[in-house]
């Protein structure tokens, strides 16, 4: 509270801190209440006006009344919505309570607050302020009584007793005002939040929006990270391994007069280096195939199909002149789906002799279907491969379906929204 100590309010510092805080709070509550009364008075008066006009038409028909009504009722409606913004200002600047800006959908709640609840609160505010003024007047009765002509004091000699009672009553009322004001403010905040505040469904909707955005960010970030690792591996380890295998190959080809044991060692090292290259290549492809970025989904998938250990029929039907290209993260998921599905078929569907991959774009949906002619019975709830696959599909709001009756065939169908 150091700021409060600066001039020109230096004298405030001389008040004990607890009292000072209480006074500051009281000042705030009274200002809030007064502003509230002003705002609530408008609909109160309008209500009164309209009611009087209506009563007037019943008891004493006046040809001008409909004209005045035609003016006053719209005014009431305007007040029902128009007062919301001043109310938001009142809550924000005087109380530090932020009410959300309501859109047109909240019109019903705004009418309810401004035209029904508001006037009731206005009555309470009026009572509080009236009590404050009356208490002040009573407490200070011995002061202002001196403004009364002295003849009156002479004529009413016994007034001092009454005045003393009044002063005491005023002081008691004054002591009650801070508590009452704080209670009223608390009530107003509660009501304001409940009626004008965020409803549960609004809050949930906003939360869903936030979560969707942050999840898309996370998916993109993971994607970018995979790309970076792929690039690093390509520039580093892959080149080194190829160079190593090449040198071993050169040794094998040139050092023909070595003892057989040594040749065997070189042979083994050469084989292992080549295996390591293969392993690293498939690891890199699993991360994020560079070909996906450079030449797109179609090309990347035909590479996958060609490397699969069983014959794969691949049909990719992507219109070349799409208005917007599929989001890279979605393409990566589609690639991952086909890659995992083919690996899965090769590993688990032992009786499968062939697989079929179909990728089509239906409007905003990228549809990937992988089928095999194995004996079926695949269960996504078992096996981490299918589960991981489904999770990755869900991460971009896709749907994952699998049909694998015992006896086959197995079909997996994945639908991905193309835009994120």
């Amino acid at each position, binding site marked *: 509270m150091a700021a409060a100590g600066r001039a020109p309010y230096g004298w405030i510092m001389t008040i004990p801190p607890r009292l000072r805080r209480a006074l500051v709070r009281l000042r705030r509550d009274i200002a809030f209440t007064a502003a509230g009364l002003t705002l609530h008075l408008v609909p109160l008066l309008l209500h009164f006006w309209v009611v009087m006009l209506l009563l007037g038409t019943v008891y004493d028909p006046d040809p001008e009344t409909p004209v005045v009504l035609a003016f006053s009722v719209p005014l009431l409606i305007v007040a029902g919505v128009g007062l919301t913004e001043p109310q938001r200002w009142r809550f924000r600047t005087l109380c530090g309570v932020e009410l959300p800006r309501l859109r047109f959908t909240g019109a019903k709640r705004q009418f309810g607050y401004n035209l029904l609840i508001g006037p009731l609160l206005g009555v309470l505010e009026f009572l509080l302020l009236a009590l404050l003024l009356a208490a002040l007047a009573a407490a200070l009765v011995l002061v202002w009584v001196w403004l009364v002509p002295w003849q009156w004091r002479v004529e009413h000699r016994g007034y001092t007793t009454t005045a003393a009672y009044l002063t005491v009553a005023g002081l008691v009322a004054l002591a009650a005002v801070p508590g009452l004001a704080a209670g009223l403010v608390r009530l107003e905040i509660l009501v304001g939040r409940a009626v004008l505040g965020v409803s549960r469904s609004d809050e949930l909707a906003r939360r869903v929006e936030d979560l969707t955005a942050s999840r898309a960010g996370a998916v993109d970030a993971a994607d970018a990270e995979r790309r970076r690792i792929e*690039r690093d591996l*390509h*520039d580093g380890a*892959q*080149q*080194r391994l*190829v*160079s190593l*295998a*090449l*040198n*071993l*190959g*050169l040794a*094998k*080809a*040139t050092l023909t007069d070595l003892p057989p044991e040594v040749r065997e060692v070189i042979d083994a090292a*050469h084989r292992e*280096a*080549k295996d390591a*290259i*293969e392993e690293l*290549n498939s690891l890199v*492809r699993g991360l994020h*195939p*560079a*070909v996906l*970025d*450079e*030449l797109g989904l179609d*090309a990347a998938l*035909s*590479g996958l*199909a*060609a*490397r699969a250990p069983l*014959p*794969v*029929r*691949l049909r990719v039907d992507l219109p070349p002149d799409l208005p917007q290209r599929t989001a890279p993260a979605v393409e990566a998921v589609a690639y991952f789906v086909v890659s995992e599905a083919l690996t899965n078929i090769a590993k688990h569907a032992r009786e499968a002799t062939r697989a079929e991959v179909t990728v089509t774009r239906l409007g905003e949906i990228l549809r990937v279907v992988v089928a095999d002619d194995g004996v079926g019975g695949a269960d996504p709830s078992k096996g981490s491969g299918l589960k991981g696959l489904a999770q990755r599909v869900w991460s971009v709001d896709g749907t994952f379906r699998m049909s694998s009756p015992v006896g086959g065939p197995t079909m997996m169908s994945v639908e991905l929204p193309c835009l994120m």
Partner: protein
Amino acid sequence: MPDVKRAVPEVRRAVIAEDSVLLRIGLVKVVEMAGFEVVAEAGDAQELLAAVEEHRPELAVVDVRMPPGFTDEGVRAALSIRRQRPDTAVLILSQYVEERYAADLLATNTSGVGYLLKQRVADVEEFIEALRRVADGGTALDPQVVAQLLVRRASDPLERLTARERDVLALMAEGRSNAGIAAQLVVSESAVAKHINNILAKLDLPKADADHRRVLAVLHFLGVGG
């Protein structure tokens, strides 16, 4: 296994474009072992094109992914070499196989073209064989390229082939000679010739004795090549 130290009638010249210095050193050794004189080494596509203009080599060995973009600079450079210097044979080395690159390279002419995975350089003898084949005006396609092409055509006529005939077709598409196919499959050359006749008949392809014309026909059937 071909004789590595076979004498060549004249020393043919080669340029090598590869941005990884480590790998370039190894590549130079292998290309020299194949009997070429390496007249220039380039680190990117610009240097490669300049070197080809300057030296008019018989062979260019080109990495696909090079600076500055690390995407397909090598392929684009190779295409421009094939347009401007058709006498220079081009062997592309790539980290992964992309049939579209192959299709582009083979679009006009299948002679003097090679497209291999980078890791194939480790099999020194086979790589040397491929280098010589390409420089001689032949074709060298990576088995994986062929596999991708076969996936694309995994349709009607191909299904009439037996498994063994499909193997032979793939090796033909790689650009191998009858002897090369026989060695790979460990069968006699006459058996290979029989398979080839069957394949050509089943696919309605013209009979051709010259290796590269046969490759042309097969690749054309697989949807690439002019």
